[in-house]
């Protein structure tokens, strides 16, 4: 896609008609893969993300096992057809870095000490990407962890804020990320006000940065509600089935 002339129109609306602090439409579903111990699917705008959790299970290779807690492993991966130009399926440097920061974002939430000598493996597949996929991946993976029944301090939820055409914006899509002035992805456990992922690239003053993280946290809190509903929805359907 080529560079748009402007990211904001005269009314201050964004390319997809959103207001500055408006999230993209978001939809989540829990427990959708039969083989996984936990799984979740998320759509956020044009992002489509699938996450699966396997474990706690025996660690392979064995020498990686820790005597006092489980190890958490995470793979963030983009499908070759998820972007405009085919992406090689081999893990890129970007994907390796994101796998690491996503693991660091989820780990504070999980009670790893409950499962010594085991591993909990998280697989995130980006089926379609339109900006903010690391955040969408974290939100989805946290649901999959909860679906797997793994004890957590809180759900982890992520959202980005940023800057485009001089204005701070929430939940950046691909064009805004690429051609905007800054991107601040943030993940948190809203229940205990703990920021578990924070990255930034672009250019922001201290004041703008402070506003941007407030904005991202506000977005997180909204997505958190959707996340909780998605988890509940699974058990509501189970209850209905047993009543029949």
């Amino acid at each position, binding site marked *: 896609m080529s560079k748009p002339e402007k990211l904001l129109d005269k009314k201050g609306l964004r390319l997809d008609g959103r207001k500055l602090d408006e999230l993209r439409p978001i939809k989540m579903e829990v427990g959708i893969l039969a083989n996984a111990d936990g799984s979740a699917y998320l759509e956020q705008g044009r992002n489509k993300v699938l996450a699966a959790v396997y474990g706690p299970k025996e660690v392979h290779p064995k020498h990686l096992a820790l005597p006092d807690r489980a190890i958490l492993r995470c793979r963030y991966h983009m499908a070759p057809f998820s972007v405009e130009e085919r992406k090689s399926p081999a893990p890129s440097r970007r994907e390796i870095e994101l796998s690491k920061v996503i*693991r660091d974002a989820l*780990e504070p939430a999980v009670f790893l000490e409950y499962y010594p000598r085991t591993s909990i493996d998280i697989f995130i597949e980006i089926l379609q990407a339109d900006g903010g996929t690391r955040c969408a991946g974290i939100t989805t993976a946290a649901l999959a962890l909860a679906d797997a029944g793994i004890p957590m301090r809180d759900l982890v939820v992520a959202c980005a804020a940023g800057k485009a055409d001089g204005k701070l914006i929430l939940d950046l899509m691909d064009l805004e990320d690429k051609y905007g002035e800054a991107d601040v992805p943030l993940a948190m456990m809203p229940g205990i006000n703990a920021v578990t992922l924070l990255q930034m690239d672009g250019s922001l003053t201290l004041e703008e940065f402070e506003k941007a993280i407030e904005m991202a946290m506000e977005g997180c809190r909204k997505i958190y509600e959707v996340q909780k509903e998605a988890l509940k929805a699974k058990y509501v359907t189970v209850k209905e089935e047993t009543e029949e």
Partner: protein
Amino acid sequence: MISSIVSKVKQKRIAQLVAKGKRLDGRALMEYREIKIEPSIIERAEGSAQVHIGKTQVLVGVKIETGEPFPDIPDQGVLTVNAELVPLASPTFEPGPPNEDAIELARIVDRGIRESKAIALEELCIQPGKKVFIVFVDVYVLNHDGNLIDASALAALTALVNTKMFNYEMKNDEIVKKPGYKPLPVRNYPVAVTFAKINDKLVVDPWLEEEHVMDARLTITTDKDGKICSIQKGGSGYFTTQQILEAAKIAKEKAAELRKLVVKT
């Protein structure tokens, strides 16, 4: 002390001291170790610098070659940052292709330079769409005693500031080198400042043993105007909003101090 494993007793001691506002090596919480910068120490490289922060030692070499531009930005030069955690630097470093730590390190250094627009890449175009200069920044960790990020970013910046490009002219679409050099166009000075969270307090420039104790790490890179250009959180802990904002303020001040150490020969 060859092993990188820190005993539980020492870990506890480090954490307790930090809670009291002290550190095991006698520094204040917001004090860097001694920093030494040596520019241009590899003559074969177009640019180079070695940085010591305490016992941490990082060498950066810059090589400049010609090649094809990215198809989506045909009129700009290319910046490539790579980091090697060389096995001679630590008993925990293994030979082999870069692991996730090395890739993360390279990408943090890369983002600082790229997002602050430190190199005027548009001036590195030879023939739009066909030929541009490629700036290879290779980070070589020689001794690991913690805070590799700040040392690498500082070494990379110093190396770039001291990078000389050969003069050339075009003859029948071929580049012919001419005598003499000109400096690489460097427009901004991004400096990374890394904090560790230990016992719910922030310390700057963690050394290796503190890195073993820390819950989480936060790197904030600011440019010469004091604007934030890159941030990276790492480690399996978390930060509160207050801690993040405090870190951002301190990072700006510390970066200004570190920037003064960057020398041009």
